[in-house]
């Protein structure tokens, strides 16, 4: 068979399928584009100027510099005043804007809502719920467009589109993915695999019709899943609906400091007597003290640790800032570290 004949046969068999695929793809593209268009008027950028603090600091990449220099750089960055931009979702025609609480921790100098036309409006913090990582701002907004909520709660496997307004408030950003799991953050949020960056915090997560499924939250530089990991969260609209009246009334619900040392467990190892650590979270209290992946915690102060529950109880029973002696078994050798108990900034 000649080459052209082969080509002709291929084209004849492939053309109808290809045309159908192209049509399907175009339909999907326009569906996402329409979803973004529908939610876009309800998504704004929020500029936060804040006193520098450990909470607010930007974490430089680890491992690039010797540990000492790394630490100095970190301290320096913590001290610089910070200005960040995140996203927000309009919550009322009176100018209420929902966003993520995490970027608002610490002392805020100035808050503003950045509109698509390039103008900035001063905003004030009305209320917040740290556990659900939601905050409500209010600003003078003209023609505020309140988004339509989705009719149902998101289910695992559902398409989602995350829409933010950072870095350029004039242009919405879109990332697509699916719902990975329900009932995260004590049932308040869903987990999604759409890539979320810091600027997505407080932004909208919508269905393919552009209806609000939830508000993107729990994106911090210090969260162990980090940015863009394909593990992101959105507080679902039902929780938002529940909370909104109370937030408008000025609810300010902070989570008491939760003591933690920054280790991820390897639970269930029956042949080991102690709390086995699968991963020491980089930059966490345990990592700073010198604990390593694979260590087996056998004692906290003089209290024997037989399993993971013992360790959790021993840490939770102490206060943030306490120093404890943690003894681990590392390949048959016992080593003791002094760990300063830190504060968990996510759940």
């Amino acid at each position, binding site marked *: 068979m000649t080459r052209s004949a082969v080509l002709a046969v291929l084209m004849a068999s492939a053309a109808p399928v290809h045309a159908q695929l192209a049509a399907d793809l175009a339909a999907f593209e326009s569906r996402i584009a329409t979803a973004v268009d529908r939610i876009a008027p309800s998504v704004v950028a929020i500029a936060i100027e804040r006193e520098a603090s450990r909470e607010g600091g930007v974490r430089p990449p680890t491992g690039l510099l010797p540990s000492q220099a790394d630490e100095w750089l970190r301290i320096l960055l913590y001290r610089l005043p910070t200005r960040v931009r995140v996203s927000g979702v309009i919550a009322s025609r009176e100018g209420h804007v929902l966003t993520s609480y995490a970027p608002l921790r610490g002392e805020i100098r100035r808050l503003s809502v950045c509109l698509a036309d390039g103008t900035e409006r001063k905003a004030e913090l009305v209320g917040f719920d740290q556990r659900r990582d939601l905050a409500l701002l209010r600003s003078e907004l003209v023609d505020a467009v309140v988004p339509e909520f989705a009719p149902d709660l998101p289910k695992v496997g559902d398409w989602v589109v995350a829409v933010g307004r950072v870095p350029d408030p004039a242009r919405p950003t879109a990332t697509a993915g699916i719902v990975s799991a329900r009932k995260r953050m004590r049932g308040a949020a869903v987990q999604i695999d759409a890539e979320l960056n810091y600027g997505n915090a407080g932004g909208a997560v919508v269905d393919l019709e552009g209806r609000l499924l939830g508000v993107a939250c729990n994106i911090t530089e210090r969260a162990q899943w980090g940015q*863009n*990991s*394909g593990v992101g969260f959105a507080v679902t609209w039902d929780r938002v609906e529940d909370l909104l009246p109370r937030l408008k009334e000025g609810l300010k619900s902070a989570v008491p400091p939760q003591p933690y040392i920054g280790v*991820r467990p*390897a*639970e269930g190892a*029956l*042949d080991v007597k102690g709390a086995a650590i699968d991963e020491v979270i*980089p930059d966490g209290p345990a990592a700073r003290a010198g604990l390593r992946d694979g260590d087996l915690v056998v004692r906290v102060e003089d209290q024997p640790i037989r399993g993971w529950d013992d360790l959790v109880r021993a840490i939770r029973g102490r206060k943030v800032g306490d120093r404890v002696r943690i003894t681990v078994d*590392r390949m048959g050798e016992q080593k003791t570290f002094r760990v300063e108990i830190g504060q968990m900034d996510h759940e």
Partner: protein
Amino acid sequence: MSEPKRRAWSAYRAGGLAVCLFIGSAGGPAFAEDALQEAIRSVADRAMPAFVFIGGGSGVIISPDGEFLTNQHVALSSERWEVRLGDGRVMTARRLGADPYGDVALLKLEGAEGLPWVPLGDSDALKPGQPVVAIGNPFALGGVLGAQRGDAAVSAGVISAVHRRQGAYMDAIQTDAAINPGNSGGPLLTLRGELAGINGRIATRFGNRVNSGVGFAIPANQIRRFLPVLRRGGTAYHGMIDGLQVARQRNAADGALVTGVRPGSPAGRAGFRVGDLIVRVDRYPTPTWSRFEGVVSSFPEGADLDVVVVREKAEARLDVRLSRLRNRESEIRFLARTIPAELGVRVDDAPTGGVVLVEVSEGSPAAAAGLRADDILVRLGDRRVAGRLEYFLVLRWMRPGEAVPAEVQRGAETVRVLVTPRPREEAAEEVEAGGETGEE
């Protein structure tokens, strides 16, 4: 990225998935993407009960009597485990067999019968662009045995590439489905709900151990070849053609060129000759030496393979039985190139175990720690160093700038020091070329 570009990208990424599903969707939902959503849901619904929460990672049940697969690096620390199944049951499991080099462990749930399970698919039929679903317990967000028990997480993506060689992952599937610490040992599934592979590694940058859109899975077909050995219990070993040397400095992608055959060796007895161009091993084409080695070591020791070579313009078939894979030079060199840290030493296997420091560079971290040439390094960090492979496997976990304890034998003396690895030169280039990879 501009707004239209972003939209186009999102649609492309999602639409790319839709392409593959369309054909089966006639008469189904109105939109291809709705059909795809249904397919992802149904795969997740079926596989979720067969999911296993184990230690810091994940696992998947592959037989109704409770055999399940995970990564060896997940199940390493204990023979017996208390685990939670996707349906909430807590059971005890025992390790049957392990493939430490291939990073696979087979465990068995005790007293189990009639369990939901996932069939092994044909990973050789996977095509780049094909949609896949990963299930796992990233960052242990679903908890394990503690008070906060949640569901495993589902992430979707496509097959990015097949037959990738990534260190000891000799025939890896690459995927852009989000795979993070905690996903290790969990299933990568096709839309037919069959096991494509076991998720095990992610490419990371700058020590930031989260998904980068580059995840690696051990293919189902390789696992299937090792299952009989794993079921018998004990340790599985990978195969190699002993006595065969192939050219490593060769750009042509027409085969693996034989440059040496040791007389009387398995390669010699099989009839290999210098100048043979190896073009196929079993059913796999071998365009490069790297792929050739990857294919061979994706079979267990003792496997009988037929190999096709081109010799004097004609094809010849050779039968060969694989020997046990040793820590070969190429593997070690490959590993060494992917590590972001170094001690500034040249090492060789010490006949008595450990690695001998052949050379300690001036001003290097090793020199600063007081290490000397001829010292035999036996322990680094928290691990025993049996040879060069272990040395690099351990070094791979070290962060530049972080002091780690090392133990050397100096004559009859045992010396313990703290050594601080430095960033390996040219590491940035490696990152660009493909990134460091680490188990998660």
